[in-house]
């Protein structure tokens, strides 16, 4: 399988504080990959560096072309879309406007954009009911659904999800993960997940990485990860 995303020797951080010390990671076309790790391991930094929000050193290639050093708007135009931690919505814009902004890279493809908005309203009926409400008035779960739909409006080949289950009720989390599985199955969208809810994420993923203080400490098929005693104790709690 040729790599869709190929990350090699990635070094990134905030100002003087270096967080990632040379991370190697790949995601194949249509693959689901999860990154596990404790708080402060650098999971969010990894996602932000790939999305172009942080300056980084090392190589990031997407579809065989270098991606490192690009601005976020160029990264999403290439087909990599991030659902940032803490809901990436526009709180002062209506739900419908949020989805329209999400399609910014698609130019003036009005019919296609309208059809996609309609599609996400069918996937998340609650968003249709709130279409004319400003996003700031939505509940946490509704905002996260909107953030996912907004990120998918750019029709990415790879969707990055940074802790989308954080702070949400189990029922909502299950619904979100069902949608992720669906877009992977039906549209072939590859997924790179950073997740606290390791059980759910390993269930969805084909492969997993373990990140420890900015380095990859382990990797392998998700099924093996679940059977690994150390991982189980640390991240699954049994």
């Amino acid at each position, binding site marked *: 399988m040729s790599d869709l995303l190929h990350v090699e020797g990635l070094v990134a951080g905030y100002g003087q504080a270096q967080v990632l010390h040379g991370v190697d990671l790949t995601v194949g076309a249509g693959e689901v990959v999860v990154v596990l790790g404790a708080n402060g391991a650098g999971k969010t930094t990894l996602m932000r560096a790939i999305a172009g929000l942080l300056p980084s050193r090392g190589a990031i290639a997407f579809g065989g072309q270098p991606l490192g050093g690009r601005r976020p708007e160029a990264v999403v135009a290439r087909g990599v879309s991030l659902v940032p931690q803490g809901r990436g919505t526009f709180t002062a814009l209506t739900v419908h406007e949020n989805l329209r902004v999400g399609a910014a890279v698609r130019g003036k493809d009005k019919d296609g954009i309208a059809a996609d908005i309609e599609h996400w309203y069918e996937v998340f009926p609650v968003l249709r009911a709130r279409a004319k409400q400003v996003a700031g008035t939505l509940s*946490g779960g509704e905002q996260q659904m909107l953030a996912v739909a907004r990120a998918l409006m750019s029709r990415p080949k790879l969707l990055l999800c940074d802790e989308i289950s954080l702070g949400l009720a189990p029922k909502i989390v299950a619904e979100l993960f069902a949608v992720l599985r669906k877009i992977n199955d039906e549209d072939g969208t590859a997924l790179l997940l950073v997740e606290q809810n390791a059980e759910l994420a390993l269930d969805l993923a084909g492969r997993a990485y373990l990140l420890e203080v900015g380095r990859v400490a382990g990797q392998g098929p998700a099924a093996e990860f679940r059977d690994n005693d150390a991982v189980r104790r640390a991240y699954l709690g049994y």
Partner: protein
Amino acid sequence: MSLLLDRLFDGITNGCVYAIMALALVIVFRGSGTINFAQGELALFTTYVAWWLSTLGAPIWAGLVVATVVGLVLGAGIERTLIRPVRRRNDMAVLIVCLGLFTALNALAGLIWNSESKVMPSVFPNGLEDYLSIGGARLYFDGLGVWLVVLVVVGLMFLLFNRTRLGLHMRAVANAPESAALSGVRTGRVLMFGWGVSGAIGAVAGVLVTPLSPQQLGLQTMFPILIYASAAALFGGLDSPVGAVVGGLVLGVLQQLIMGYVGFIGDTLPQTAALSIIVAVLVLRPNGLFGTRQLERV
């Protein structure tokens, strides 16, 4: 009664100018997170361009059009060359650049066109007989013209923000710049366009307001207007275009009524009154009338 109407008409005319200057301030504030103190001097510079063209024999409405285009280009150019390089450091740096621009543009206008007052031609008929008589009060045509132009500017801005893709992107960048970039919005271009629009609005405001004031065009013409517009923008809520327009009109009318009826303030202290409004708003209602309260469900 007719005296009250006279004052009301004058107040609305001034208020219209404050309103669009405040609107220009709000557009920049929403994108760049700072009050553009150079807004007034940007307007001054473009007003000089219109005046200069009129001395060469061009009709003043042509000068208005050229000044608006110069304002657009100058505003966008300033964002690209001076604001963008410092923006990523912090908002304070942007503020300092704006203050620097304030003095630089004023000095530049003085250098090119010297510091003597100029007679600025009016876009609208402004003879002593050019008025409508309403209830004994006089609504002058040049005042009415200002009302109409401002109505058109506000209408265009409304359409821009609410009916166009670019306007939607401007609102997105104002609301959450990082999410906008992640969505593929070209934030740099959007901010540059916002500065350009502000420059163009400033030019319209400057060309319209200068012939109304008895001092005509001088290097100090736009400074009081900037103070009033800042007060209006604060009063309305710095991030609210609707608030800017309402704030401008309220301030214009209030100013005329205070000057007319509160003798001891008179004509000498109106700027102090504007500054008092700024302080009062900051103390009593920091988000203004229509501003966003920083309170959301998360």
